[in-house]
């Protein structure tokens, strides 16, 4: 039976099988490679927290089932195209196809079987929905308030649960590793979405609403995050990170953050000539930056504070002095230098050698719009203040002291 043509056909078949196997190996290897997070800080396939792990465990089998269905259909098409192709010697009217109009039982089968399969997936899917909901609803957990605004994230900690925040920070959320943390997500302007892919899926921040969510990190480390609901001009540059610390270090961090800012004092208030750069920078800060940026414990508008952050820093000020900021909020800079980056977690505060990255900070103060698109003329984003170079370097010197 082994005519040259059947032998050739077998060779083609063998090659096709080999090629498919090769593709399968590549795909499997590729999928494996996709799972690490080297150079991919936002990888959803690399869970490092309980919720992300839960989701990954749920979706991996679904991916596999989808892969099988994919191979079945695509392989089926290739097979049919090869097997039932019109041959050169086929003649119309001779040996034409059998005219089948359908097969009810077969069709019922491929209606019902996928439905059952999907129902099976549905059971696990629903279970996970409710399971993940549980932690988000558990009010006994430590809670961080997350506030989104164009184009940065704010995090508020109310450690004594008196309804007033004790720590307000921006861009970097610090949590204790291994511990479930509840989040209350809100927005000050448009809809944003909070997302730390390695820890959990995303949750929208919707103005007028508070959404509960939760995260947990198995181990200490840094977890990158980003806004993922389109929120206007600099949506792409609204990043954040979560820093998970061992419990003791976290407690220490919290204690440090609760302290008011250490501010320079002026021994000779009448003489500005002898001011150190830090002091001069502080004065410029008070005159310019403090209009929007809060430093816990700083006297402003003639009002002394108890050192605790003011959740409504802008709104509580007399209307005449109130900047017309659309979000009504600017980053609290009390412990600026305890963070890694600024301006939506975009630019490094420290250079590689550990020194303060004065280039980044001064460029930002000089012309923020050149580094990150914003609509400062519409009161969204930081405006260009028009400071001279001395003022800028003084302000940088002052900011560098806000450890």
């Amino acid at each position, binding site marked *: 039976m082994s005519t040259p043509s059947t032998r050739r056909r077998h060779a083609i078949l063998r090659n096709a099988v080999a090629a498919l196997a090769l593709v399968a190996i590549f795909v499997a290897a590729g999928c494996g490679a996709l799972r690490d997070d080297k150079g*991919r*800080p*936002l*990888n*959803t*396939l690399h869970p490092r927290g309980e919720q*992300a792990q839960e*989701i990954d465990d*749920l*979706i991996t089998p*679904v991916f596999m089932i*989808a892969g099988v*269905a994919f191979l079945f*259909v*695509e392989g089926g*098409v290739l097979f049919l195209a090869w097997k*039932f*192709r019109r041959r050169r010697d*086929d003649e119309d*009217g001779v*040996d*034409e*196809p*059998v*005219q089948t*109009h359908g097969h009810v039982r077969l*069709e019922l089968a*491929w209606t019902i079987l*996928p*439905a059952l399969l*999907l*129902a099976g997936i*549905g059971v696990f*899917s*629903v279970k996970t*929905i*409710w399971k993940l909901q549980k932690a988000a609803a558990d009010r006994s957990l430590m809670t961080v308030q997350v506030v989104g605004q164009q184009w940065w994230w704010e995090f508020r900690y109310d450690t004594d649960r008196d309804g007033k925040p004790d720590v307000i920070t921006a861009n970097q959320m610090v949590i204790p590793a291994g511990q479930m943390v509840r989040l209350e997500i809100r927005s000050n*302007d*448009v*809809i944003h*979405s909070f*997302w730390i*892919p390695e820890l959990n*899926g*995303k*949750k929208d921040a*919707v103005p*007028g609403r508070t*959404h509960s969510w939760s995260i947990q990190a198995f181990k200490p480390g840094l977890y990158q995050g*980003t806004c*993922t*609901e*389109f*929120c*206007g*001009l600099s*949506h*792409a*540059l609204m990043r954040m990170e979560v820093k998970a610390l061992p419990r003791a270090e976290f407690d220490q961090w919290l204690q440090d953050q609760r302290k008011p800012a250490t501010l320079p004092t002026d021994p000779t208030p009448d003489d500005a000539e002898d001011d150190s750069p830090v002091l001069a920078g502080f004065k410029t800060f008070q005159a310019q930056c403090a209009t929007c940026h809060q430093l816990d414990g700083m006297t402003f508008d003639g009002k002394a504070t108890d050192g605790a952050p003011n959740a409504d820093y802008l709104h509580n000020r007399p209307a005449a002095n109130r900047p017309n900021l659309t979000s009504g909020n600017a980053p609290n800079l009390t412990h600026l230098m305890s963070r890694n980056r600024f301006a939506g977690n975009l630019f490094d505060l420290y250079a590689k050698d550990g020194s303060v990255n004065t280039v980044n900070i001064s460029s930002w103060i000089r012309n923020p719009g050149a580094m990150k*698109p914003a609509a400062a003329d519409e009161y969204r984003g930081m405006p260009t203040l028009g400071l001279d170079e001395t003022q800028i370097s003084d302000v940088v010197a002052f900011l560098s002291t806000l450890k």
Partner: protein
Amino acid sequence: MALIEARTPLAVEAGDGGRPSSPFGVLARPTASQTGWKSWFTSVDHKKIGIMYGMASLFFFIVGGSEALLIRLQLARPDNHVLSAALYNQVFTMHGVTMIFLVVMPLAAAFANYLIPIQIGARDVAFPRLNAFSFWCYLFGAIFFNTSWFLGGGADGGWFNYAPNSGVLFSRTHGIDFYAVGLIITGIASLVSAINLIVTVLNMRAPGMTLFKMPVFTWMTLVTQFLLLFALPVITVALFLLMFDRRFGSNFFNAANGGDPMLWQHLFWIFGHPEVYIMILPMFGIVSEIIPVFSRKPIFGYPFMVFSGIAIGFMGFGVWAHHMFASGMGPMSVTAFSLSTMFIAVPTGVKILNWLATMWGGRLKFTTAMLFAIGLVTMFTIGGLSGVTHAVASADTQQTDTYYIVAHFHYVLFGGSLLAMLGGFYFWWPKVFGYMLDETIGKWHFWIILIGFNLTFGPMHILGLQGMSRRYFTYSANQGFAFWNMVATIGAFTIAVSMLIFAANIWISRARHKRNPVEVGADPWDARSLEWIVPSPTPEYNFAEIPQITELDDFWYRKYGHDESGRLVRIAKTEDVVQQPGATGIHLPSPSYWPIVLAAGLPFVGYGIIFSLWWALLGGLITVAGFVGWVLEPSTDPEAGHDGHDHEPAPSAGPTEAASEDGAGGADDADSVPALAGAAAGSGAGPEGEQA
């Protein structure tokens, strides 16, 4: 049914014969004798309107495609500066809106307009002037929407324009105003067209064509029109609220003043998800026409194909909130929409398997049209499977708003809709224009677009799962997105090359046909449905004689029967079965100026709402004039029948009148009137076409 079947299609009442046809004495009514480019503006012929829909959508495809290339250029490398953030946000918004509302939907309308009357054995749609109005309304709405580029910038809130980012406070240019008003105008077009096509399909089928003898394409388009009918009012309401918020300071979506941004999301997606099926169901229909023809087998499981389409239509209204799994709905809503979304995969899966079963045991001929149809089957499957992974709601919170979604819906809408429509072009081109597109170039087109498409959108699955969010104007080198973005950009330009090949194919094939016309015949593919019984290009009157239908694929069974083992045997020659060109004395609806006048007023109303109400007054006057003129004009020109002989004849073709002496007759009582055969060249080439 008896009532419907007894009715002669297009037995249009002529109205009061004594009424003048130009009520204001300003515009003489256009007559059927007019040919050349001017006749397109007043035509109510469903074929011309279909061709115009097709040409307009291809134009906007170039616009939307160029926007896509700009997006890919900007994202080719990290921290790129081809586009500014502001411009990028406009470009991706306009790309999405253009491709959905100005390309895919009207392309489906192009196929529906051209094919449905011929597939059901009618001579036109139920309301020919409304049909023309739909087209002009779409075209003017589309142009209006795109003029925003020159009037301060395009919409910049994404095609979904979530509130409150779409509010004036956050988007101060007029882009989103143009979006709201432009989509209201194109929405009128779709809504009117939906009603028109529903009435056409329900009332104008040839005698004997029961619902379950209709071609699958007609069925799927019918389902689509019902989806449009129920979905468009929702988006129209939402767009009105948005427009009121922006222009008149209402607070429907403004949380600060007691409104609710979630309201917009629900309204948008109650429309937005059926919209997905509006864009894919007609293409399922196209594929269901092409695969049987080139397998030489009937569609496998016709009732399952029809009912799965209907099921998709129904279920399509119950899954909208799966776009909102991360939006903060309660877990019960998430559960419900997660489950309904899973089960909508079932009827879709049935379709895929039935197509495979149609191919099983066939004699597959891989024409370009067939390759594109198989392209839908294979590529849509990928989009469908990734869709199932979104239905797992918890996992969707990792996927939503990332490039994984972008990959998913491009596999559905490009790999599905667009590939099928290109297949439809290759398949029906000879019917519409009377010549074939070159098959060799067509196959190059197919393979290059398939490679380009997969290079562009395949990597986006990986990018999305690696955490790249949508609608980012840039990304950083340290995020690990650079490699696959570069691949996607190369793929996008490969697609552009393939579309240039398509353009070249049209050009070359047309030039070849002009040089050396080859008769393609009524039935070049040995096809199954009724449109292949009429000459190519389709004569203006479609059917010289309305065929009596006895079964599904009636035309096929006029050519073929089976032997006792179920194999196909020819029983008649195609030439003996198809209709011959050159019929005479068939009544057709008269052309009219009023549809284009009525539609022309609407963009002015739009400009008025945005800039100065004086423009709205002007637009309103034009529209009212259009209404009045329309109402006073009989649908069939009573004058047209009277002066057929002494009307000044068209230059080279002799007499070309369409209507009867008495202006009220049926289709077969007026052979005394000279033929309109001259005007029958469907390509609009002029009266010298097919003189019998």
